[in-house]
């Protein structure tokens, strides 16, 4: 199918999300005070009443598989492609939805297939880790003058101000991506809060929040000591820089001594549930993410604890990691469903690209898979996405898109729409340059339309 059969993103949206809805939803309420540019973008109200859109996704959990996970060994199996493509893989598994199959490594997800949908035609054609990671998480083309913020930073910018929770609005479990600058040009304020620590350890020591060696009594005594010892603050407290710094310190203490840290106390969960998620870092990452959803955190990223860049040792690494991914994700979806949170929590999971469907048997790879940006798979669930569907498909060997391509703007545009963020809204660039959430309608940006078939 050709891409021109679809409406460009903007058309679909102009009907359902108007600027006015965005203003009424309060997206610019206080952000506008801080960033005059954003307020200017909130154009005057239109005359015609438009039915207010319902924000479906109140929280988002993004599971990022850094390095790029193979698609045909996981969510887009091609059992007929032969040994050069499948290597030692066994026959795929049927799921609880007729006609959807996943690889042998995902028995638990197979029983939850009604809760998620698979996009099997994600494509951008980029095979560089940093550039592809940037593309998938910003939908902007790499190599332009501006370094755009990631989805999480955009959420934090639009939703963070009205959010009153005890935790930061954009949390990363547990380490930032490193080669990718999440906040882009929005600056340090929009950086994610990276927890550090290990949620699977006896105590999840969130760096800066949960301290190993300082008791609450000592913490309190220290705080009082600091107030007495801060002589410069006493002498020059009226200074605007110092006032801002003290405000930030106050917010930090709310987390250290306030309610926020309880969210990280996984011992409050039943042992059986912790087992169901899996007693490994990724499983407990998922459990911690669910607790954050309950605490109202708008955007949570789980950077998979491990890499999927399996140029060599591919099948061994996959055989170890994929079952953990299966267990954690399946438990997360089921738990969200059972708690009535799945409808308001959007989950999406993918890497920066897939991996070459044809196995590289040459040394030094000896049965590895290389980068593959032409087509790969994404799992989406909840927050307004329907479960039990497959969007698009790849060709017989999972090498190219066969039908219904999904480009980064299509995926992220859908996520933004479900969260009530106008993809055409302006972002405040420090130098006052024109910058919008998504590059809709820009020359060279391919789009095949929002994922309306599962929304």
């Amino acid at each position: 199918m050709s891409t021109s059969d679809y409406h460009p993103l903007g058309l679909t949206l102009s009907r359902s999300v108007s600027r006015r809805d965005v203003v009424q939803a309060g997206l610019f309420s206080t952000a506008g005070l801080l960033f005059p540019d954003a307020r200017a973008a909130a154009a005057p109200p239109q005359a015609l009443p438009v039915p207010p859109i319902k924000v479906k996704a109140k929280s988002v959990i993004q599971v990022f598989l850094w390095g790029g996970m193979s698609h045909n060994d996981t969510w887009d199996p091609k059992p007929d492609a032969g040994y050069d493509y499948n290597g030692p893989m066994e026959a795929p598994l049927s799921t609880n939805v007729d006609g959807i199959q996943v690889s042998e490594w995902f028995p638990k997800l197979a029983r939850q297939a009604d809760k998620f949908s698979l996009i099997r035609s994600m494509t951008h054609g980029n095979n560089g880790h940093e550039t592809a990671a940037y593309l998938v998480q910003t939908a902007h083309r790499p190599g332009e003058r501006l370094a755009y913020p990631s989805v999480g930073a955009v959420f934090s910018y639009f939703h963070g101000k009205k959010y009153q929770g005890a935790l930061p609005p954009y949390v990363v479990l547990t380490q930032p991506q490193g080669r990718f600058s999440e906040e882009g040009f929005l600056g340090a304020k929009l950086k994610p809060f990276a927890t550090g620590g290990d949620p699977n350890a006896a105590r999840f020591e969130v760096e800066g929040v949960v301290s190993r060696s300082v008791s609450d009594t000592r913490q309190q005594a220290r705080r009082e000591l600091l107030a007495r010892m801060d002589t410069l603050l006493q002498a020059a407290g009226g200074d605007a820089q110092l006032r801002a710094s003290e405000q930030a310190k106050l917010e930090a203490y709310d987390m250290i001594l306030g309610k926020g840290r309880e969210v990280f106390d996984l011992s409050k969960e039943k042992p059986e549930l912790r087992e169901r998620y899996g007693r490994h870092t990724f499983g407990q990452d998922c459990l911690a993410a669910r607790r954050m959803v309950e605490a109202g955190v708008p955007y949570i990223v789980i950077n998979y604890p491990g890499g999927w860049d399996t140029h060599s040792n591919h099948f061994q690494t996959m055989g170890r990691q994929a079952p953990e991914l299966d267990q954690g994700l399946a438990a997360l979806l089921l738990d969200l469903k059972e708690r009535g949170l799945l409808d308001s929590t959007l989950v999406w999971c993918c890497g920066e690209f897939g991996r070459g469907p044809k196995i590289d048997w040459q040394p030094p790879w000896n049965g590895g898979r290389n980068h593959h940006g032409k087509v790969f798979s994404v799992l989406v669930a909840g927050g307004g996405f329907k479960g039990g569907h497959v969007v698009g498909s790849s060709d017989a060997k999972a090498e190219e898109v066969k039908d219904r391509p999904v480009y980064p703007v299509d995926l992220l545009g859908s996520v933004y729409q479900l969260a009530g963020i106008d993809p055409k809204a302006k972002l405040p660039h420090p130098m006052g340059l024109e910058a919008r959430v998504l590059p809709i309608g820009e020359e060279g940006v391919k789009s095949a339309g929002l994922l309306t078939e599962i929304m």
Partner: protein
Amino acid sequence: MKPLWLLLLLAASAAPVAADEPKQAPGPPLYESASPVKVECEIDRLVVAKLKPLGVRQVLCSDAVFLRRAFLDVIGTLPAAGEARAFLEDTNPRKRRALIDHLLQRDEFAVYWAMKWADLLRIKAEFPVNLWPNAAQAYHRWVLASLRENKPYDEFARALLTSSGSNFRVGPVNFYRAMQSRAPEGIAATVALTFMGVRTDSWKPERLEGMAQFFAQTGYKPTSEWKEEHVFWDPTGTHTLASNIAPGKASIDEIGKPAKPESTETEAETPAFIARKEGVFPDGQKVKLTQERDPREVFADWLITPENPWFTRSITNRVWSWFLGRGIIHAPDDIRKNNPPSNPELLAYLERELVKSKYDLKHLYRLILNSNTYQASSMLGDVKPAAQAQFARYPLRRLEAELIIDAINKITATTELYTSAIPEPFTYIPQGETAMSIGDGSITSPFLALFGRSARATGTEDERSNKFIPSQWLHLLNSSQIQKKLEQGPGLRDLISARQGPVRTLEDIYLTVLSRMPTHAEIENAKDYGKPVPGLNKAGKPRAGKRSEDWIDITWSLINSSEFIFRH
């Protein structure tokens, strides 16, 4: 003759004085000097002329404040306790001038300023530009060497603008590689930002196009060595890479493909560059470009002269902003007609001085550092914007990420591990290097990322963020990283275990952390803190002194104080 404290510096960390009594006599206020401000230099005359009508009078900062300020501003490093004590006890009335001369000669000088320049010159191996590790090192080494030899700024700029050769071997060629766009317009925009302090985003497209002609013949070609690339004058345009595309012109599909030098496609495009053969300087002057001369040199000839309206002005204004927290034209990289200097006479004077000294930046540093305006107190409270723009006081500013962690490491005698996600030999950093000395912006640590080290993507001054966010406080107040350094680092342990009596210990902690002596009130606060040491002494009385846990908390409180974390 050398002042006393310099001699003491040579004698390493000065021998301790036995007395264990508070020395802080009632006298001059802690942060300000009792001596009246005497207008002696031209900078002060010009600044005071602007401040008088505003009814604002500068106050000089105290010796202790000056010491710390000068160390941080000139070499990005805290004074050692011995250095601080020696300077404070020195009675030479000209000791501030002597300290400035001393600091300008220190090894850390070039290291610190190379870090600043690396932000503006975008020295970073990967993302958003693939400069590559080996090339980033070569680029940084060249900047560092130039600063060490105090290369005149005009030569420095010319080398960056006109060099040709390998990215691994000729450091300054990386200037043309460390750009997000290698299209002629992209290069022109970066050149204007770096050397003219001008943002071309507001220019009419024709103006940028005219300037772009000088960079349209900049060629890039790979060699057989992995990641090596030559930058050279390419008048025929045969080596224009496929990645050499104007911003916003490339589709997703075009990026990431290997460059195809000498493809028929690019050849077809090249005549457009050459056909013009006329460059237009940003001042409107036109010049014919010939096949005899690299147009980058033609541009450098126009730019690098004392008469050029941007060149001297831009660097002078930048240097001022680095020391005084804001430019005379502000922001320092936003020079344009409708953004006038707050004190044109002052800027003109400094420009003349720089030209007279043959672009010796240290001369400019000296003039500024010795002025009362630089040495003004920061204690005027929240001064009005108008007075702030006229430099009524030295503004409080949070330290850079690198300086904070280096200072904490120095105090606790601990080290950090800095790594890069890029697995190459050129990204290996020996343990114990300071954060400030890391050349490649891709080599990093969670601390540096958290505290807003520059992304080195655009080369604008505000890419480095020194504003506090709550998660930074979480880290300073309560992270295991900082706590471990305080508990286990030999630096603090040695101070505490020296057993010189609590007041002397406190003095040493203050000199080490805040570069000054504690006040009476601070001594009392510290005395009151914590629990008594358990057990009795030989005489059956409660033991004197403090538990080490309490000393740690006291040091912790100083590291988390505004005085530690803000230049003041």
